[in-house]
């Protein structure tokens, strides 16, 4: 006699941070210095990221994701960032685009794009920064003009993370005095992608210089409200990006701490080891304290994002500001503790040092955050 199991299959489980930690330790860290030097995350690692369901796990199940909450996403990006900031950067920008399609896309855009994005096919890149723009998006050197029912996109984006790999670009362009977001296939006629090499940090994140020469787009290329992308698509995506970068920075602090705990316990200094030295102990204490504090700030930002609380905007700025600056200090201290050992071409702490500096620049520079967070002083002191 046979019976038929009529129960619905269990929904796919969100990625487990513990399993991702093992993946980082066994499959990334043994080879990260080599591929960082090659300035390219290997294809087989990208496939493993797909197998682990890490590209956009926050997407709902009906769109190919696992409905992973943002607190867990922060832990996942911390773990990946502990192993490789370049790979974490690819997750960041792909996640920003995927989330934007889910949040601001119409039903057709969601149905058409999200199942593929959930699996990293294609990978996506976030095209905001122009060659002269930096953090000031008001001078974006890209514009779009109405053309019949569609648009013609012309312009130039630079330092686009994952641009060499991406099959889909989310491009921000001036439309008159306002800004609109466009979904642009990488193989659209008029799109030219040029790899950028020799970058200071996140060297394997496959940055690109991208030009758009009279790229013709249909009306369905517009994502979100036309003319108000700055306050909606751009800001909300960058908000997620800040949570991811902050979490990756926690990972950098963790990697610095691990490297320093090992070397200070064994490297002779005077009659003892480095770990006996008071000034070295201060550096280790700061790494431990800052990692805990930064992780809590990321968890708070994730929790507010999970509940759509408007406070997430400020919380993400605070988390990114604290974590990125703490990561830069931790990585600098790690190189100092390692001495000449930390200055070699394949030194892990040298890579952390270069990557941490980038964390202070992307997704809003440290200086922007130092200026903007002060606006919230009144809110902070009001019961």
């Amino acid at each position, binding site marked *: 006699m046979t019976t038929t199991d009529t129960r619905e299959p269990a929904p796919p489980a969100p990625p487990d941070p513990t399993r991702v930690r093992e993946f980082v330790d066994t499959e990334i860290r043994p080879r990260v210095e080599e591929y960082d030097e090659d300035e390219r995350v290997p294809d087989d690692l990208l496939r493993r990221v797909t197998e682990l369901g890490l590209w956009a796990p926050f997407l709902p199940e009906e769109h190919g994701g696992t409905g992973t909450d943002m607190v867990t996403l922060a832990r996942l990006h911390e773990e990946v960032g502990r192993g490789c900031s370049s790979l974490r950067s690819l997750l960041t920008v792909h996640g920003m685009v995927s989330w934007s399609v889910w949040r601001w896309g119409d039903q057709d855009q969601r149905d058409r794009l999200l199942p593929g994005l959930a699996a990293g096919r294609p990978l996506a890149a976030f095209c905001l920064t122009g060659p002269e723009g930096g953090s000031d998006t008001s001078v974006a050197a890209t514009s779009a003009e109405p053309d019949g029912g569609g648009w013609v996109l012309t312009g130039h984006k630079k330092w686009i993370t994952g641009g060499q790999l991406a099959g889909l670009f989310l491009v921000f362009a001036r439309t008159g005095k306002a800004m609109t977001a466009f979904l642009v296939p990488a193989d659209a006629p008029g799109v030219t992608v040029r790899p950028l090499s020799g970058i200071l940090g996140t060297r394997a994140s496959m940055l690109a210089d991208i030009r758009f020469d009279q790229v013709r787009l249909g009306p369905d290329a517009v994502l979100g409200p036309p*003319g*108000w992308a700055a*306050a*909606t698509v*751009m*800001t*909300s995506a960058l908000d997620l990006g800040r949570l991811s970068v902050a979490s990756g920075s926690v990972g950098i602090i963790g990697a610095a701490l691990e490297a320093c705990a090992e070397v200070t316990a064994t490297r002779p200094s005077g009659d003892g080891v480095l770990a006996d030295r008071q000034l070295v102990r201060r550096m280790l204490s700061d790494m431990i304290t800052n990692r805990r504090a930064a992780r809590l700030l990321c968890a708070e930002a994730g929790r507010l994002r999970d509940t*759509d609380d408007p406070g997430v905007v400020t919380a993400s*700025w605070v988390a990114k500001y604290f974590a990125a600056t703490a990561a830069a200090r931790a990585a600098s201290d790690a190189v100092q503790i390692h001495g000449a050992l930390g200055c070699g071409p394949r030194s892990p702490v040298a890579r952390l040092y270069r990557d941490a500096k980038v964390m202070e620049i992307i997704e809003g520079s440290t200086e922007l955050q130092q200026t*903007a967070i002060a606006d919230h002083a009144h809110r902070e002191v009001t019961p």
Partner: protein
Amino acid sequence: MSQDVRAEIRQFITGRFPQLTLDDDQDIFALGFVNSLFAMELVMFVEQRLGVRVPNDELRRENFSSVTAIAALVERVGTGTEATAG
């Protein structure tokens, strides 16, 4: 209800900018200190207040430019919808 909504909106804005003496019809974007971050907070505030997403065709700068405009948006989008957060 309309007065309650207006009061909530006013409280949200002045909680962020306490130096502001706010007229309900005043264009807050014309005051010079509203940036895209606060505009995003306004969108999230309205959505949290309504418990629904604001449709893309209602996501326009002018719909968030004053207490009166935001209250009208809340009324329009929230018709038939119970507010689940506030």
